């Protein structure tokens, strides 16, 4: 039997000295799968995602990624593989290209080179028909969110943690981003764990739906 890509085993989490936010979580994730975690705001969706890239550390239990416990990875290597995208996309001052290239200057990404052709392909894929020297601060939130996704694709992360990526977007942008993620999953390009507070349905793929409530994770349909 093929082992799980990510395995969350009996995980609990609380902020330092606080009451538990998450308790007894179990989740098995296969490669190139889409996991949707829904729940009210404050239910702990962000806290859960941040356990996977170690912005938070589990209080109990363990998380295994690629047959190795995440605490055994070098922190920068872990975050290179498992990329967290915040709810509100942050744009650095400069052009669209500046926003795509800056992570390549980080030590952990030194083995990769920014590929302008590939960036062009991803810009087309996410329907951003703007020149790369366009001022990034003039982009709408929806466009910024797409830039963040393109950056993630260029960095070739293995897992994307999307923290309510569509909550600040209008319906057209939301639909577009959902479709593009659906196609990426269909093409077996990436594994995605997405937190959302609204219901999302897909026509071509069957994601696994979970609901976070009362600190616990439940499988839903």
């Amino acid at each position: 039997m093929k082992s799980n890509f990510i395995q969350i085993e009996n995980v609990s989490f609380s902020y330092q000295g606080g009451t538990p936010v998450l308790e007894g979580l179990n989740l098995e994730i296969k490669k190139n799968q889409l996991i949707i975690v829904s729940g009210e705001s404050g239910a702990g969706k962000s806290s859960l995602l941040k356990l996977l890239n170690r912005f938070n550390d589990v209080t109990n239990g363990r998380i295994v990624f690629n047959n190795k416990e995440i605490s055994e990875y070098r922190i920068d290597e872990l975050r290179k593989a498992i990329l967290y995208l915040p709810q509100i996309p942050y744009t650095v001052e400069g052009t669209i290209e500046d926003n795509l290239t800056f992570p390549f200057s980080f030590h952990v990404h030194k083995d990769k080179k920014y590929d302008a052709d590939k960036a062009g392909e991803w810009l087309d894929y996410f329907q951003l028909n703007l020149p790369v020297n366009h001022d990034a601060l003039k982009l709408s939130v929806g466009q910024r969110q797409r830039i963040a996704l393109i950056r993630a694709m260029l960095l070739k992360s293995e897992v994307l943690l999307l923290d309510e990526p569509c909550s600040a977007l209008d319906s057209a942008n939301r639909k577009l981003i959902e479709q593009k993620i659906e196609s990426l999953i269909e093409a077996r390009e990436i594994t995605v764990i997405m937190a959302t507070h609204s219901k999302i349905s897909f026509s071509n793929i069957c994601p696994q739906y979970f609901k976070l409530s009362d600190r616990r994770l439940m499988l839903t349909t």
Partner: protein
Amino acid sequence: MTEIINISWFNVALTTSLVIATGLCSLYLKLGLEKDLLVGTIRTFLQLVLLGYILKIVFALSNPWIVLIVFLFMIIFAARIISGRVKEKRIRYFFPVLVSMFLSYMIINIFVMSIIVQVDPWYKPIYFIPIGGMIIGNSMNAIAIAINNWFNGLKKERERVELFLAMGASPAESTRDNFKGAITSGMIPSINALMSVGIVSIPGMMTGQILAGIDPMIAIKYQIIIMLILVASTALSSIFALHIVRSMSFTTNHQLKV
């Protein structure tokens, strides 16, 4: 050498009339400075008279250990002032900052004493204590400004710093601009002083030496040395201190603590 005029204690006390006038202005304009002016004036009298006595004893004993203890005491006091001025209280940087101040000031002070001024012995208190005091006083402000701006910047740019961390950047890579901004903001007064000295201001040390009857050309050499020492010690101690504060602002797993 010209005769030095010894100011009488009565005349020193008479100077307080200027502060009283300032206090009256404050009352009239409702500036609320009266209490601070009063406390500040009393402290100035007490602290400086006490310093005068201590210096007399320290100068007379000329013992390296006593010189170092006085120097360390001055640095502890400066570090306390810094931690009082910095608003962020969750990170316990007092002791590491104290150590970084002590080390950088010792390196510079010993270099100046033994190589530049060639004082024999290197700890001769009439040189070591006043020059050390100027170094501490100057860089204390720079360190306080740098640390304060560091935490403010970190809070203001939390989203960006976390985005960089999430992409695998190290704490240093995530905060390169914050670090640079914090250090330069602390350094600006020292650099401005380098630019304006002799034109806009005649610095205190030189004024003191001239008043004491020393040839202005000798006073100038001392002043040049002092200006350069101040910039170097300010830079060295604030870079050193901020490095420590930066590493204390993150966990070993590159999580932001503030």
